[in-house]
């Protein structure tokens, strides 16, 4: 008697379809699972046996063999527990054809309870693509699974309820799913008000530009970065507020649209850290430090781990103490900064993970950190500074549009009048983004920071006098041809923030002030 159950395996942030085939034959009691399962899958035999018994089912006394097809793809994770257990029970009963049309995923505890697993949302998405619209998933993953439209989700608390649901005919199954969804919605609405306030409080509210005294130049730069999706490098003395400002940055970003948040949710689901319902549309903000390894940054390993670069997808990757980081780690950022993707190899396959983020780097200006402070506080030799700065290569610097220098705020600035709150800045950013989205309608990008060559020519034309300014600047500031384009891109965003169609001289001038400061050039006399 062979039963077939549909489930899903996870590779990176995408799921693939797996069929659990169960054959119960006569013979000496024997139980094995084949199909290139990793140790976690092989271990599941023990859990499944206990769970089946503890849920008062009977484990078939015979020659039980299960296969995870396709058998040539490595399978890891614990999400196979529930489909395997369901497969055994179905096979024992004699199987009904309908089960293959339900996607089942979940881990089992020894008492038969269903535990949440990684990658439920990608699995549901994958299932929908394969023409499967009914799913039984762990109760703990219900919220993320509901993000996927057009499917029927049954959240299983234990093996027994999962079996009951799997035995229903499709119409009844769907009716129950709709009912459950509606009851969750009403429950959500009754507690929604309190919920919403809480989310506002711990996300945007905690770090607000209104609490930062001074540093107006840096704030303006971050506003532009948020409006045009430009990468930023903040150079500044220790304690001048780089980290704080970067954290405030999250509060001025526009919310994600559904598609964006859906992508993000899939990534987070693949890592087993689904985002809370009240923050689904908030852009991710990932903070990393100098101690991070290359694979933690971009992902990789066996089994495949998602890196911070992908976790920051559609959001912000804030790299603190960038210049203290080993060069090979920083260099790993080249690919995501350029292609908005990271490529990682695992088990002989090459996976492309999305990694489209705004990069914010913070660095000290010199080894001692005090170069920008007056009164000769800095004790570094010029060669030490040059060596320190060379850790961030030109390739990385080229991909950073905005560079700013920051210094500690004088004590007289502290406690002055309250500054412009994030809320107001955010409104301007949202408007500028809308203008860009309108302009780049139908393209595969929606911001000035990601503009391609064709649109660059169309959107970033400048007047003759602006051109003259840039030519003069090329002489006076020693601009490279490459930085030319960056300056115009940033100027485009400045104009968008003002709601203007054309780029003015003033925009170019402001944009010029964000140009490269990092490289130690030779200045004479």
């Amino acid at each position: 008697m062979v039963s077939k159950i549909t489930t899903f395996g996870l590779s990176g942030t995408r799921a693939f379809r797996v069929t659990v085939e169960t054959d119960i034959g006569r013979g000496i009691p024997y139980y094995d699972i084949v199909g290139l399962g990793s140790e976690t899958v092989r271990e599941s035999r023990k859990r499944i046996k206990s769970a089946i018994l503890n849920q008062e089912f009977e484990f078939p006394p015979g020659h039980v063999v299960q296969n995870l097809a396709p058998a040539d793809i490595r399978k890891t994770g614990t999400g196979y527990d529930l489909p395997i257990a369901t497969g055994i029970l179905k096979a024992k009963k004699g199987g009904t054809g309908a089960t293959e049309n339900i996607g089942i995923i979940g881990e089992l505890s020894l008492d038969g309870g269903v535990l949440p697993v990684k990658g439920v949302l990608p699995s549901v998405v994958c299932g929908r693509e394969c023409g499967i619209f009914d799913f039984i998933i762990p109760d703990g993953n219900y919220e993320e699974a509901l993000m996927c439209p057009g499917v029927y989700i049954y959240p299983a608390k234990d093996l027994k309820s999962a079996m009951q649901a799997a035995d229903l005919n499709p119409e009844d199954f769907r009716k129950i799913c709709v009912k459950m969804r509606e009851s969750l919605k009403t429950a959500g609405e009754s507690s929604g008000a309190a919920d919403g306030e809480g989310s506002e409080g711990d996300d945007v509210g905690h770090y607000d530009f209104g609490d930062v005294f001074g540093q107006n130049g840096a704030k303006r730069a971050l506003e532009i970065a948020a409006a045009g999706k430009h990468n930023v490098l903040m150079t500044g003395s220790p304690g001048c507020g780089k980290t704080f400002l970067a954290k405030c940055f999250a509060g001025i970003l526009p919310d994600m649209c559904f598609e964006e948040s859906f992508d993000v949710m899939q990534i987070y689901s693949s890592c087993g850290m689904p985002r809370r319902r009240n923050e689904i549309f908030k852009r991710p903000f990932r903070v990393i430090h100098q101690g991070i390894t290359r694979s933690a940054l971009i992902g990789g390993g066996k089994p495949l781990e998602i890196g911070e670069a992908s976790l920051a997808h559609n959001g912000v990757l804030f790299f603190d103490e960038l210049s203290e980081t080993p060069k090979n780690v920083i260099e790993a950022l080249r690919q995501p900064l350029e292609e908005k993707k990271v490529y990682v190899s695992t088990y002989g396959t090459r996976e492309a993970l999305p990694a489209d983020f705004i990069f914010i780097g913070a660095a000290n200006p010199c080894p001692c950190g005090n170069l920008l402070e007056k009164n000769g506080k800095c004790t570094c030799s010029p060669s030490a500074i040059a060596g320190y700065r060379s850790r961030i290569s030109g390739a990385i610097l080229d991909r950073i549009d905005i560079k700013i220098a920051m210094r500690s705020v004088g004590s007289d600035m502290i406690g002055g009048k309250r500054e412009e709150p994030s809320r107001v800045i955010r409104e301007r950013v949202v408007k500028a983004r809308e203008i860009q989205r309108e302009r780049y309608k139908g393209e595969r990008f929606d911001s000035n920071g990601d503009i391609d060559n064709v649109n660059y020519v169309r959107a970033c034309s400048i007047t003759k006098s602006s051109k003259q300014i840039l030519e003069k600047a090329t002489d006076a500031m020693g601009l490279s041809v490459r930085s030319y384009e960056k300056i115009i891109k940033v100027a485009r965003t400045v104009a968008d923030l003002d709601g203007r169609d054309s780029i003015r001289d003033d925009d170019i001038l402001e944009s010029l002030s964000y140009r490269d400061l990092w490289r130690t050039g030779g200045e004479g006399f």
Partner: protein
Amino acid sequence: MIDIKKYAAYYWLGKISGGKRAVQDDLMSFYGSAEEIWAAGQRGEIGCKTPGEKDGLTVTSEDIMNRAVEIMKRVSKDGTGVVSRYDDDYPSLLRECDGSPLLLFYDGDIKGVNRARSRLAVVGSRRCTTYGREMCGKLVSSLEGRDVCIVSGLARGIDSYAHKAALEAGMFTAAVLGCGTNVIYPGENAGLFAKIREKGVIISEQPPDTQPFKSYFPARNRIIAGCSEAALVIEAGLSSGALITANFSLNFGREVLTIPHRIDMPEGAGCNDLIKTGAVMVTSPADILEPLGFDCENAREIADMLPEALDRNQREVLYLIKTNGELFEDEIACETDMSSQELKRALSALEIFGFVKKDFAGKYYAA
């Protein structure tokens, strides 16, 4: 148009008094004007010293007057000018000096010399080194925006570079020649000559058409020294004419500045000697400002001299940078009411136009 009679009389007075200033002053205070003196000479009230015989001809007082009228007609026709020591437009510093010429012929804006806040003579060898040329350009252009008149002699070498740098920086410049104001010498300076005539002034004590002559040049140097508060000797060998200018400056009680040179280079030996004997050694632009009477601490004064081409924000920022030396953007932000984007624009503009520079740490300083 000039008053031909009046200046012809001055010219005549200069000749018959033997160029002696005391005699001229006495006669002027007695008769009140040059024309009166001429009339008195006609009446025989005063004795006229004439050069006597020349080429077998006796030059009389009338001959001199006729020549004078000719010269002034020529000046009038050319549209150039002449000014006497008793006129207001005469360079006032030169007036104070012993042996200042009674008449100065000029082409351009003579008033500019007095109008400038300070005047700096910049002199040096005709055959100059690269070092001399570069330092000349750097030091002169460092005075940009400060309303200083650069006085020099339009000779080859340092003189030309000083004029050029001054013109490039938009400063007023006066070229004092050892020949007539319509004689271009050396010929290769024709372009520069035209520019100075247009934007500055060309001065000579020689009447038009006078060809350059050896002895005219030291005399020219005395005018250069006399016109200026200080003389900056960029480069001078041990027998350079620039040292003559320096000597005049010392005698007139003016400051002598110079830059140090390598001790094994004969081209700069004269400058090093000047330092040894007490000239001001210039190693930075600030060293020039003080002898010229600039109070570097007084911020307002600098602000007043900022270039007019800049807008209000740019002037304010430039003023802050010039008064503080080195500033970070946030320090400037603290001192102004500008929004950060206005400030950034102003800084970029100043940087592009070469008024300020930004170092790799993000510090702005006056260029």
